[in-house]
C-alpha cells in the first residue's frame, strides 16, 4: 500500500528511533512510504499560541504539497503533527473565507482532499492476519499502552470512538502476541511541553504513570508519540529524582515492538538510542534488515 509520509521534526531529531523503526518494519507490512518533498514545520503547539492564521497556513502547506504529489492518504507518525494537520483540515473544510486567506498565504491550491492518518490507523490497516501469521506470539510480554492526549483528543477532530478508554494500540499489541494490561493512566497527561520549563511537574505526572504501570507488573509501556516517549524515557533520571523511586520499565514505540516481533535487529530499530535499557525483545531469531526502495531514496 503506497502512502505519503510526513515525518516532522521529532522523527528527524530527538526521536530518530521512531523513524528508523517505522522504515525498518514498513517493507514487511507491505507499506511503501514516500516522503513529502520540501515539507515544512507543522507549527506544533507554539504556532497556535502566536498566530491562528499561521497555525493553519503551515499545516495547509503540507497538505497542499501532499495534494500536489497526489497522495490520497498521508501518514503522520508524530501525534502532535497529526493533531495539527487533522484540526487544520477540519477548520478549513467549513470556513471558506479562512481557506481563501490561507491559500493566498501559501500561494498553492488547497482543496483538502488528502485524508490525514495517524500511526495507529495505518498499522491497523497493514497489520493484516496474514502478516500476523508470520509472527505468531512473537512478542510475549505483558505491556501497558499509553495513548497520551493528542492521539485521542479533541473528539471532533480525532474520531477515536471510546475517547476515555481507547483500545486501538491494545488491539495491535494483541496481534503481535503481547498481553496488554488494563490500567488507569491510558490518557493521563505526561506533562508534555512542561518538560522544558517545569520538569518537576513532568517528574510527578510521569512518576504516577510509571508507578501505576510497574505496580501492575507491566514489562514495558508502549507509546506512539515522540513527546510521550521523551518525557517517560529521556526524563527518567529527573522522574526518579522527583519521586525518589527507581523505575526500570522501558518505553517502547509501537513500531519498535512490531519490529522486535518481526525479529529485526536492535540497531535497525534504534533501540540503542533509549535512555532506559530495553529489557524486552522479540522471540524470533534476529534477521538481517531487508533494504527497502524508500530507504535508498532517503539515504
Amino acid at each position, binding site marked *: 500500500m503506497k502512502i505519503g509520509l510526513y515525518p516532522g521534526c521529532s522523527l528527524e531529531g530527538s526521536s530518530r528511533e521512531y523513524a528508523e523503526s517505522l522504515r525498518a518494519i514498513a517493507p514487511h507490512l507491505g507499506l511503501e512510504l514516500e516522503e513529502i518533498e520540501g515539507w515544512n514545520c507543522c507549527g506544533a503547539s507554539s504556532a497556535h499560541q502566536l498566530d491562528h492564521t499561521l497555525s493553519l497556513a503551515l499545516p495547509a502547506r503540507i497538505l497542499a504539497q501532499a495534494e500536489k504529489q497526489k497522495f490520497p492518504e498521508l501518514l503522520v507518525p508524530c501525534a502532535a503533527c497529526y493533531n495539527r494537520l487533522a484540526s487544520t483540515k477540519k477548520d478549513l473544510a467549513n470556513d471558506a473565507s479562512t481557506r481563501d486567506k490561507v491559500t493566498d498565504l501559501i500561494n498553492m491550491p488547497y482543496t483538502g482532499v488528502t485524508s490525514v492518518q495517524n500511526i495507529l490507523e495505518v498499522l491497523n490497516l497493514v497489520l493484516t492476519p496474514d502478516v500476523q501469521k508470520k509472527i505468531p506470539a512473537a512478542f510475549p510480554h505483558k505491556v501497558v499502552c499509553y495513548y497520551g492526549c493528542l492521539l485521542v483528543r479533541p473528539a471532533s477532530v480525532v474520531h477515536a470512538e*471510546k475517547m*476515555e*478508554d481507547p483500545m486501538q494500540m491494545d488491539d495491535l499489541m494483541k496481534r503481535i502476541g503481547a498481553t496488554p494490561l*488494563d*490500567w*488507569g493512566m491510558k490518557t493521563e497527561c505526561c506533562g508534555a511541553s512542561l518538560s522544558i520549563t517545569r520538569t518537576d511537574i513532568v517528574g510527578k505526572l510521569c512518576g504516577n504513570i510509571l508507578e501505576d504501570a510497574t*505496580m501492575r507488573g507491566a514489562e514495558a509501556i508502549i507509546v506512539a508519540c515522540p513527546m510521550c516517549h521523551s518525557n517517560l524515557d529521556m526524563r527518567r533520571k529527573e522522574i526518579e529524582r522527583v519521586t525518589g523511586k527507581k523505575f526500570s520499565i522501558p518505553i517502547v514505540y509501537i513500531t519498535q515492538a512490531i519490529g522486535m516481533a518481526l525479529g529485526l535487529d536492535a540497531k535497525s530499530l534504534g533501540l540503542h538510542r533509549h535512555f532506559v535499557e530495553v529489557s524486552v525483545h522479540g522471540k524470533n531469531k534476529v534477521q538481517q534488515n531487508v533494504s527497502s526502495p524508500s530507504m535508498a531514496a532517503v539515504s
Partner: protein
Amino acid sequence: MSRIGVFICHCGENISATVDCEKVAKTLASMPGVAHSVDYKYMCSDPGQSLIRSAIKEKKLTGVVVAACSPRMHEPTFRKACAEARLNPFLCEMANLREHCSWVHAKGDATTDKAIDLVSMLVEKVKRNKPLFPIKVPVTKTALVIGGGIAGIQAALDIANAGQKVVLVEREPSIGGHMSQLSETFPTLDCSQCILTPRMVEVAQNPNITLYTYAEVESLSGFIGNFTARIRKKAKSVDEKLCTGCGECATACPIKKIPSEFNTGLGMRGAIYVPFPQAVPNKPVIDRSRCTYFKSGKCKFCASKCPAQAIRFDQQDEIIEIPIGSVVVTTGFNIKETSFFPEYGYGKYKDVVTGLQFERLLSASGPTLGEVKRPSDGTVPKKIVFVACTGSRDPAKGIEYCSKICCMYTAKHAMLYKHKVHDGDAYVFYMDIRAAGKGYDEFFRRAIEEDHVNYIRGRISRIYERNGKLIVRGADTLLGAQQVEIEADMVVLATAAVANDGAESLAQKLHVSYDAHHFFAEAHPKLRPVETNTAGIFLAGACQSPKDIPETVSQASAAASKVIGLFSNAELTREPIIAVVNRTAPPLFSTCVGCFMCQSACPYHAIEQEEIKTREGKLIKMVAKVNPGLCQGCGTCVAFCRSKSIDLQGYSNEQVYAEVMELLS
C-alpha cells in the same frame, strides 16, 4: 337585504378622546345594509348591552357590529348579549377601535377615517356571517391510563373514585413502576413499599378499574370523547383465574440466573417469575425468551409443579378494542445506564452502580435484603462516593436539563448508608444542591450535620480500578480547585433521568408531540401543564419531564380532574369555528377531488377520507371530511385547498374577500 346594527362605544373616553364617535356612527348609518347605528359611552356595561338587545328586537337586526375594544376581550360578552336577544351569537362581530385605533393614534380626521374603515369592514363581514351552532360531540365515559407507576395509579384511583370507568394498562407484569423499586422516600424517609402497596391493592380491588398488566397500547384512533384503543395483552402463559399465586412454579423453575429487571440486574430471577413480593397482580408470567420450553420444547417443570394446573404454554397475545373517552399518559421515565459514561469506566467496574441499583441494595426486599454490599465481592463498603449530575446538565452528553430528583435521593442514599454502616465514610461530589421542595433543604442539611456526609463541591474527572479499590479523581472547587483523589470501595452515580424507552413510538401512536429528549410536550408550560395539543389526551408524571413523587401525584390528580371534567356532562360542546368541506348536488356531490393534501397539512389529523357511494354501494368518489370534534379552526387547509372546496366557518373565503374589498374601495 341584511339589517345590521352598528354600536360605536366611547369606552368612557378611551375611544372618543381621539375618535369622533358620533361621526363614525352617522357615517355608518348611511352604509347600505345598516339598519341601526348609534354610539354610547359604555357598550360593555349592562345598559350598553341592553341597547343591543332592544335594537335587535325592535329593528329585527340580522347582524351586529360592536365597535369598541379588542374582540379578544369582550367578544364573548357581546355575543352572549345577542344570544339573549335570540340573535345567533356568531352574527355578532367586534371592530377594535381602542387598542388598534384610538390608543395608538393622535386625534384627527385620519384616526376617525380609520375607525370608519374598520367598522365598515366588519359590517361587510357580518353581512356574510352564517348562524353557527356549538358542536355537540358524544363522550364515552371510560378513561385509558397508560402506565401503572404512581402517576397512573393515582390518576386511575381519582377517576374511578369519581365514579367513572378506567382501563389501566401497564407494560411490566406488575404495576408499581420505579417507586416500587425504591427503599425509602425523601424527605420523610417512610418506606416506599408501605405507602405504595396499599394504593396498588386499591387499584386491583376498585370495581371501576380494569387492570391490564404485561400489556401495551397497540394503536389509538378517533378523537376526544370517541377514541378507540387497541390493547395488546402479551401472553403471560399463566391462566390468571386459576393461579392462586402460591409461587411453587417459581421455585421449581430450573433456570435461576436471569438478571432481574426489578432488581436492576443485581438480583436474579427465574424464567417464570413474579417481579417482586408485593407485585399486583401477584401472579407470575413466563419470560418466553429465556424459558427452555419455548426454546427446545422440553422441561415444563413449572406445569408439573403447579397445584392449580394454571400454566398455559399455548396462550397467544390477545388484542382487545375498547371505546375510550379520554387518555392519561403516565409512562414515567428511565435512568441512564453506567455504560453510557466513558470517564467512569463504561460500566466495566462492578462496584460503580446507578442510584436505582443502590436503591435496590438499600431495599429490605432487595437482592442483599437491605445490607449495603459491594456487588463485586459482597463486602461492606467502608468508603463510598456518590456522584451527582452524572450526565445531567451536560450538553456534551446531549442532556442539558437538570433531572431534578438526584440531589434529594443522593442525600437520602448517603444518609441511609450512614445509618446502616456507622463507621463508613460517604462523599458526595456535587455542582449545586437543588432541594427546593417542602422540607427538602432541612432534610439535606440533616445529611451533613447529623450524618456527617462529606459534600465536596466539584466534579470528578475519572474513576479507575487499582488493586480492588476504585480511584476517584476529582477537584474541590471550594478549596481552590485542589485535586482530590479518593480510594473508594464503591461509587454510586446519580445518572440522568431520561424518557422511558418506547416513548417516541407511543407519542406517534397517540399523535402527541414530544420534545428533543422524547419527553411528551405539554400544551402550555405554565397554563396547561397536564394537557397536550391533542384534545382529550392528558399527561402526568415523569413522562412529561423528570419530577419527584409529590409533584407526580399532584399532576396525576390534576390530569384526573381534567378527565372528570370532560366526563361530567353528557356531551362535549365546542366553538363552531371549524372547517367544513362543501357539499353540492349530484352528480358532483362536492367540488373536492380527493387529493387529500389537506389531510397531510392538518396538524390535528382532523380530516378524514369519506366515500360517496351510489345507493347500490358503488363508489362514486372519495372526498375529504372534517371531523368537528378534532378541528381547531386554524384554516391552513382552507387557504391551501386549490379548488376552494373547504371553508372555515367564521372566517369564510367570502368574508375575508369582502373585508379586503370594503377596506380598499
